[in-house]
């Protein structure tokens, strides 16, 4: 009796352990791919920074935001400027490039980026006979592919001749004062100023 009790007490944990089963399908999903949340990016050359997300796809169908964990790049650093992680702004008036994401040299993805070229500006009216009066000039842009009167949000810096004083400006408007009686004034909108891609749009008001 004592012997059988001893044998049983030895065999019981053995039985418990040997009865354990094996997991045959991993419960831990693996990474299947990484994607950019926009598959075909089109930007105006005067656009402010656009933010994109890197999506990590898993084998169980779930997704997660991997924007901060992924390495971002473009195939042409002269066309796009990275202003943050996943944040890009155009750096060229027109052109094509590719936005790329990569992780650990094992996961890659790309998406084409098309930058629409600004071709001309539409100006609001001003009165050059109003000396010493603050005036506002509003502009919109005409882009390639016949896209006209598009609001401008970024990348333009205004300058003028010696007869005006600019007090405030942004991409789509300039606030200025005409300092003396003149027959014309000159204003210049510089796109991508101080870069090799600088393009100037000049306007003389009579």
């Amino acid at each position: 009796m004592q012997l059988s009790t001893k044998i049983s007490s030895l065999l019981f944990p053995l039985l418990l352990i040997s009865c354990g089963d094996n997991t045959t399908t991993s419960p831990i999903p693996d990474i299947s791919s990484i994607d950019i949340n926009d598959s075909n990016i089109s930007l105006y050359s005067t656009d402010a920074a656009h933010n994109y997300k890197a999506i990590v796809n898993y084998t169980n169908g779930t997704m997660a935001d991997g924007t901060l964990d992924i390495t971002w790049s473009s195939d042409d650093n002269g066309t796009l400027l990275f202003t943050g992680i996943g944040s890009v702004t155009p750096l060229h008036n027109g052109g094509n490039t590719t936005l790329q994401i990569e992780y650990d040299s094992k996961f890659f993805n790309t998406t084409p980026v098309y930058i629409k070229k600004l071709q001309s500006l539409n100006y609001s009216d001003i009165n050059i006979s109003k000396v010493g009066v603050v005036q506002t000039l509003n502009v919109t842009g005409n882009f390639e592919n016949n896209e006209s009167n598009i609001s401008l949000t970024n990348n333009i810096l205004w300058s003028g001749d010696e007869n005006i004083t600019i007090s405030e400006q942004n991409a789509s408007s300039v606030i200025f004062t005409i300092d003396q009686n003149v027959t014309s004034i000159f204003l210049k909108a510089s796109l991508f100023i101080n870069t090799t891609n600088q393009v100037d749009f000049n306007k003389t008001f009579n």
Partner: protein
Amino acid sequence: MKKILLFLLLLTTLFADARPYIGTHLGIYNEKFSEIDARSSSTLANIKIGYGNREAYSIEFSLDYLNNNAKIFSSAPSANKDGKKIGFNISLVKAFDFDIYALPFVKVGFGSGVQNIDRKLQKSLAFGSFQLVLGTYVPLNRYLDLEIGYEIKHISYEAINTITKKISYNSVMNTLYFGINYRY
């Protein structure tokens, strides 16, 4: 200086009549994970080298080789199971001499190891462990003894990289083993 001398004196006392020994054991284990519903059970082999007194204290270094039949970490369809585990342990053994034929012991220790897996970003997974063994030596003569033990081991695995997170998994492994030791 006094503390060092006291420590050396303690060591001398603990390891009086100590002898080196080597041993091996075979066992079966069942591993259960805490964060996920996953289990693994298979067989293991172990070789050990130690130094100590069979009736009192010993220090032991051992190598584990664990078969594996479960697929817990690997994701590749071609991998039908994770790889085998190899581990290294350091343990302190305290045996008790109750003047019976067996010498019950308690063994505590820690270790580390590695397991091959097949994931997109990881091909192996390191782990750390600490363990407690309750068992008994059954002396056959002055040199040989049988060893039967039940081990409970807590294992912490290296984090799994999912790009957005690094997730660590833990498990508890129960092992029952039977082995033999030779003491010089």
